[in-house]
């Protein structure tokens, strides 16, 4: 601790340079936190994907006749089918986007792992305008059970031409891990009966549960095949593939994220290494003086390492802190239930940031430290 003032004074010798270095390190670690945090989210979502479920939806876009649900349910190997659609709208101002997923009565059976109790599901069955609001969304819109919410949804007009959809908040429910912006669930029946006649008895997508997870891909292909020549051809995707962010992109997104984070670290490394080399060069005679009055090689080298480590670790802490704030604030600006990924600041993100900061500091200090170790004191003092 007694050396802290010495190290701090050395860092603050050029305050502008110190602050700019700190800001650069902070921004690089913000990027690092967001990208590695995004990978943590991808990993979590992938982990929670079930291998016994399939998404089925209109191959060429638009709605699907609800009658197909029965036909899919009758196929061999299919255990159950649920359907859901959505009301995309906004609250008061188009910037306040809202996305209500309208669920049929089979959804709780096909997605039993969701943290919603049968009693809570029953609330939106008893009240067709009922709505389950996750805690995150309730906090965002300051909602509580019993409140009434009217959403403007120009893209989903009702039978009377009105874009207004009124919901009653039936319960505030727990958030679902991979729905990073929270959710709002309504009753599919309310939507179906209220909208224009041409859209009634149609849904957005089916969630198909199969009996044997080893046959999920096979059944997904069978569904496509069965409806290939129907007026509404279907497309399917297994939940495992749907939740795999890299699927269909032809690249490993997690690896790209890591590369972006690594590029940021290299930028920080070049910046801090150059800054430190310059700082040591400028103060070579001062280090010679320290060695003259009795500071050992290891003592002087430790001072240089501390001089590199403090801005790196401080910048990493501030950067990851900023990334955490951004991650927490992002859901406020995204509509719920669309599954848009938000970085997750797991403990491992902090650990990696700490390790990378220490490594950057170590590498930055290595060459100046070597130069100080090889210093000839008499020559350095003479200024030659």
């Amino acid at each position: 601790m007694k050396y802290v003032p010495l190290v701090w004074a050395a860092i603050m010798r050029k305050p502008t340079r110190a602050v700019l270095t700190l800001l650069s390190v902070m921004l690089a670690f913000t990027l690092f936190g967001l990208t590695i945090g995004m990978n943590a989210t991808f990993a979590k979502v992938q982990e929670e994907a079930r291998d016994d479920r399939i998404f089925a939806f209109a191959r060429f876009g638009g709605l699907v006749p609800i009658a197909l649900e029965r036909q899919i349910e009758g196929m061999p190997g299919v255990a159950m089918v649920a359907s859901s659609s959505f009301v995309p709208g906004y609250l008061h101002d188009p910037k306040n986007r809202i996305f209500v997923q309208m669920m049929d009565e089979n959804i709780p059976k096909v997605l039993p792992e969701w943290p919603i109790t049968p009693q809570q599901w029953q609330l939106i069955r008893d009240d067709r305008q009922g709505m389950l609001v996750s805690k995150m969304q309730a906090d965002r819109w300051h909602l509580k059970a019993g409140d009434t919410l009217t959403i403007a949804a120009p893209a989903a007009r009702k039978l009377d031409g009105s874009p207004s959809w009124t919901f009653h908040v039936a319960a505030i429910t727990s958030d679902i891990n991979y729905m990073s912006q929270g959710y709002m669930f309504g009753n599919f029946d309310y939507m179906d009966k209220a909208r224009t006649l041409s859209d009634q008895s149609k849904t957005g997508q089916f969630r198909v549960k199969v009996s044997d997870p080893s046959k999920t891909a096979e059944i997904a292909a069978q569904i496509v095949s069965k409806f290939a020549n129907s007026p509404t051809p279907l497309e399917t995707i297994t939940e495992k593939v749907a939740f795999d962010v890299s699927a269909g992109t032809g690249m490993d997104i997690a690896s790209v994220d890591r590369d972006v984070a690594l590029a940021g670290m290299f930028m920080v490394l070049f910046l801090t290494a150059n800054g430190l080399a310059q700082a040591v060069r400028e103060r070579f005679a001062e280090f010679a003086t320290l060695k003259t009055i009795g500071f050992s090689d290891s003592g002087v080298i430790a001072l240089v390492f501390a001089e590199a480590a403090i801005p790196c670790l401080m910048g990493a802490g501030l950067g990851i802190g900023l990334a955490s704030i951004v991650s927490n604030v992002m859901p406020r600006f995204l509509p719920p239930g669309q599954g848009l990924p938000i970085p997750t600041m797991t403990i491992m993100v902090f650990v990696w940031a700490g390790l990378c900061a220490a490594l950057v500091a170590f590498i930055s200090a290595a060459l100046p430290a070597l130069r100080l170790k090889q210093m000839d004191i008499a020559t350095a003092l003479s200024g030659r």
Partner: protein
Amino acid sequence: MSAAISLRNVVKTYKRGKESVPVLHGLSLEIPAGQFVSLMGPSGSGKTTILNLVGGLDHANSGEVIVGGEHLETLSGGQLTKWRAGHVGFIFQFYNLMPMLSAAGNVELPLLLTNLSKSERQRRVEVALEIVGLKDRASHKPGEMSGGQQQRVGIARAIVADPPLLLCDEPTGDLDRATADEILSLLQQLNRQHKKTILMVTHDPKAADHASRRLETDKGQLIERASVTA
């Protein structure tokens, strides 16, 4: 009086590219404890080399360098570093202060290497600054002080760990006459009242006059000169 510094048949040659430049040729010197010795001579005559050898900053090619009873030629770099911390105080021509530290912070530097408590370090720093007459400037940074005051801080840093030997390399070379006289008087006071052995390299005959013994280097050899004052 026992010898504080003893150089016996010391040879020192520097390499300049492929060329060897001999500086000291079998030089011998005895300085008893408590003496204030000035060392003069033309540039390149080996004054600073002698200072570096006595201060354990450089090794001789051959011969013995004994300071405070310690054979410096037998010590490793690490051992020399430890030895310097406890036995020698260095005073430089250009003060060599840390510009970002206060006077007290600069003076405290040698004490950071000890196991003294913070309060004891502060006490010793105050004493050292008081000796050099700068107790009231403890919080000032070098940039806020005159050259003479900066050199006083340098002297306080040299004596704070209470080493028996002070090595001064042109301590008044960067100061005006009046300030130089003040610094030299301070060195005399340290020699007489605090019993410090002082070896001072200087180009200035008036500065050399403050020493109790005058030596001159010439072509790698030492010549004893009569003292003017003592």
